[in-house]
């Protein structure tokens, strides 16, 4: 589903983001990417979203070269990818419901779909009773759940999560990971970056280990080794 072909990224000032990265993610896989800060995890995800261009090499989503897509095709690709971030990125002046409804609207969904899907998704992430809460009225874990709800509401083929549990306590982290597992079980491919050893060991799925922009390990049933 995702194929990195000798991808390198050099930022201005000779900062290496990625160095000759090649790997493949199959449909339905749950891949964790681990590594120190600055190892290139976030750059990797930004490449998939088409937010960053590689200096050399190609990134493919199915058969499409992401960085050769036109202005009209890139948004269509992004609609097939859900994304979750450590800093959540909810809109502070919109309620949980509105935050999710907003992304459906942006993706061109109808009002009927919005009215039925948003409560369903919030129920799925365990926030069925907090539809009309604003982000500042929610806890960190709850906010992250809204963000996950937002990422999956358009039924993406791929979910990418950049340290979604980075700011959460162990209990919330566990619950978030359970949600991810559920999402993966219904067939969504997931790429997750994390610092959390417990998360990796609990998942027992494929792990890519990055160091200085390179993939140094690729374990089928991974452990956290750094």
């Amino acid at each position, binding site marked *: 589903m995702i194929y990195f072909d000798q991808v390198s990224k050099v930022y201005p000032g000779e900062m290496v983001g990625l160095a000759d990265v090649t790997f493949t993610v199959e449909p339905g896989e749950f891949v964790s990417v681990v590594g120190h800060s600055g190892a290139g995890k976030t750059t990797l995800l930004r490449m998939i979203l088409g937010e960053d261009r590689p200096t050399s090499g190609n990134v493919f989503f199915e058969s499409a070269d992401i960085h050769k897509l036109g*202005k*009209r095709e890139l948004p269509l690709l*992004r609609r097939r990818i859900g994304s979750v971030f450590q800093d959540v*990125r909810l809109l502070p002046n919109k309620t949980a419901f509105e935050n999710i409804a907003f*992304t459906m609207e*942006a993706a*061109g969904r109808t009002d009927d779909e919005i009215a039925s899907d948003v409560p369903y998704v919030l129920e799925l992430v365990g926030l069925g009773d907090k539809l009309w809460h604003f982000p500042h009225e929610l806890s960190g874990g709850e906010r992250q759940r809204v963000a996950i709800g937002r990422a999956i509401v358009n039924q993406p083929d791929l979910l990418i999560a950049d340290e979604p549990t980075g700011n959460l306590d162990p209990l919330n982290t566990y619950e978030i990971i359970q949600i991810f597992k559920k999402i993966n079980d219904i067939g969504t491919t997931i790429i997750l970056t994390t610092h959390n050893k417990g998360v990796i060991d609990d998942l027992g799925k494929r792990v890519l280990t990055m160091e200085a922009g390179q993939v140094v390990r690729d374990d089928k049933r991974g452990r956290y080794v750094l």
Partner: protein
Amino acid sequence: MASVLTLTVTLFVLGSLLLGSAFLDSTLNNIQDKVDISVTFLPDASEEAVLSLKESVVLLPEVSAVEYVSKEEELALFRERHKDNSLIIQSLEEVGNPFGARLNIKAANPSHYETIANFLGNRAGEGAASTDRIIDNLSFKKDIVDKLLKVIASSRKVSVAISIVLVVTSIMVTVNTISLAIYISRDEISVMRLVGAGDMYVRGPFMVEGVIAGVIASIFSLILLYPATVWVRNATTNVYGGVNLVSYYTEHFGQIFLTLLFSGILLGVIASWLAIRKYAKV
């Protein structure tokens, strides 16, 4: 708000220039209407000679009308003009009638004056050699028209320069306003982009903002133009009665309205487009 204000000023000036050029045009027409060639004959030229020249001039296709003023009429006109000046009247008594007859020739088209003047000039030239020289003086007001045309041309240049400066300024201010709006909603924009919102979905609202600013500004400037035309009319009635800008404004309201509306929308769209291109990349 600042962008609406500058757009209003720009459109107001554009409207004024529009009206101003209409004013100049009609003034020019008025004056061109009054332009004619006046041929003054020598006092001793016989009436038959003058009238025969008149006949030949009338036959010219370029000539629309010829008015004959006899030397007696000319004298009467002069007396009438100077009836309060006893000194002039008195000296006139002593001299007798110093005036020659006159032909006022009107051309069908202002550009024809040259031809007619040439024709008369040739006749005058022939006459000069022989003894039957009758034309004393040939004057036509082409110089005035030329001067007026020059004034209009240079005033057009100045107004085009002013409009360009204003258009650029208003676009820059509007770009700033819309850039600020984009900056304020940068979080929304980044989320929209991540969930794959289309180009128009992200940029549309800012485009609409520019268009609305343009529409409001054009309406404001139309409202402002009305008192301005009234003021111009009141200021110019004494100087020049020919044109009434207020009635011109009300008669051509639709046309002016559409021109300003279109310019306003165009300016707004250009400004939003520039701002979006710079700050709201997809």
